[in-house]
């Protein structure tokens, strides 16, 4: 599928899909990458070393630092695929060199948990 590139890079990994938007600050533990928001559908899961798929980021502007901290603590996602790239996620990924792409709705919905994909955020493709 073709995707829009927001932050460049190329990486292969397993998909982890979130149904709900993510508030990185408070929602994700910045050291371990564990989802700590009890009301989130990924509660208890770890987002590190996965291709994280979620609709968009919400909430605090400091969430960008959470993304940077995840990278620093080696608990960051390998890449992020979203439906709408918000400013917090885009800037957090830009500073942390985490590839970020935006997918069309029908492509986005075809991504399944555990699926191995290659995110080519240079050519703008997911294979």
């Amino acid at each position, binding site marked *: 599928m073709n995707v829009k590139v927001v932050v460049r890079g190329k990486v292969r990994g397993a998909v982890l899909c979130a149904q709900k938007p993510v508030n990185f600050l408070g929602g994700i533990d910045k050291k371990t990458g564990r989802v700590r928001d009890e009301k989130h559908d990924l509660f208890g899961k770890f987002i590190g070393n996965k291709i994280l798929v979620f609709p968009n980021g919400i909430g605090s502007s400091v*969430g960008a630092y959470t993304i940077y901290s995840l990278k620093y603590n080696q608990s960051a996602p390998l890449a992020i695929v979203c439906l709408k790239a918000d400013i917090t996620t*885009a800037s957090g990924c830009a500073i942390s060199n985490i590839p970020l792409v935006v997918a069309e709705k029908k492509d986005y919905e075809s991504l399944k948990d555990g699926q191995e994909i290659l995110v080519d955020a240079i050519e703008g493709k997911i294979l």
Partner: protein
Amino acid sequence: MELTREEESTLDGKHGETLALAYRILVAIGEATDADKLVPVEWAHLSGVNYNTIGDAGEEFLSRLSKDAKFKIKTTVNPMGFDSDSVSKFHLDEEFVAKQQSIKKSYVKMGAIPSFSCIPYEIFELPKNGTQVSFAESNAAIYANSVSALKTNKESAFSALASALTGKSPYSDLREEENRKPNLTIRMKTEPADELTYGLLGYFAGKQAGSSVAISGTKGLDRRSCKSLCAGMGTSGSCGMFTLGEEEGEKMDFDYKEMARVKDELNTSESGDIITLGSPQLGLEEISDLVAKLKGRSFRKQCMIFCPRAIQGQIRNLGYDKELARAGGEILYDCCTCLTPLVDKENIDAVVTNSVKGAYYLKASNDVDVSLKSLHQIIEEETK
């Protein structure tokens, strides 16, 4: 996004790694929001000051950055983790205090005004209507767009930082007049029209709305309620602006059922061990009102009152500090309910607050329960 030749060469590193990094952030946001160019902004307000939120990664990053970076425009900063004047009373570990001081030093070294406030719109003189600014801190961005007649996107800590370093931001979303018109109206059908109801309404609206939302049926929307509305809205979603009155397009009711649903989500306790007032921080007007409400009364338990340092002089001149101390209230400057390490789950099980934003982060980040009460209820039930 089109860059000028000068911007292009800065992105390529001609003017150093710091500015190249700032432009990389601007380009990513530009791509994310479909901007076609960068525009000048006059004022950046930064979040990412509290060591509790940015951690070692943030502290080290800012320390490195401050070696050669200088802010290009007026730059103000969000609250930090504690009030230096009273921090010794709170038994924070030394490392926290040292790392927080390092963060403060880095921002000041780069040229930030040490405001440590989440209400820049209330304590600084505002530029003329329509001026482009770059406000991280979600309540401040929403307030700036909706009340202060300024233009900003709901910036992130890094996007506002990139604006501070370059004086620019991508021209997109709420910076463009045509995107500011809401296509969803939320009809307020609830009473009482106090700050708690507005906070809950904001939290509901933030979940439903895109970039901008209309709110109809409001009454008694004073500054306190307005700040509460902005803070609630900024917490739950990506919405960066509201207008008042009905607009064309979709309509949605905020009725008692919806209000109860939001309150159930955030209110996790019947009572609390301490009270916190201020998220957003209280301005002089709210302090003056609080002093009047506390005449002849005193708090039954510890009450922390969070304010910007900018109003400390006026608070003292007017004798409000003595009045609040008499009533058992403790004023804390430079910090805020949200994400303060001063509320620690080791010593505190639950907090009483009128802040919907505070409630969300107290639970999500500090892991303490919250009893949501309006200021009116707090005065009735938590003072004698």
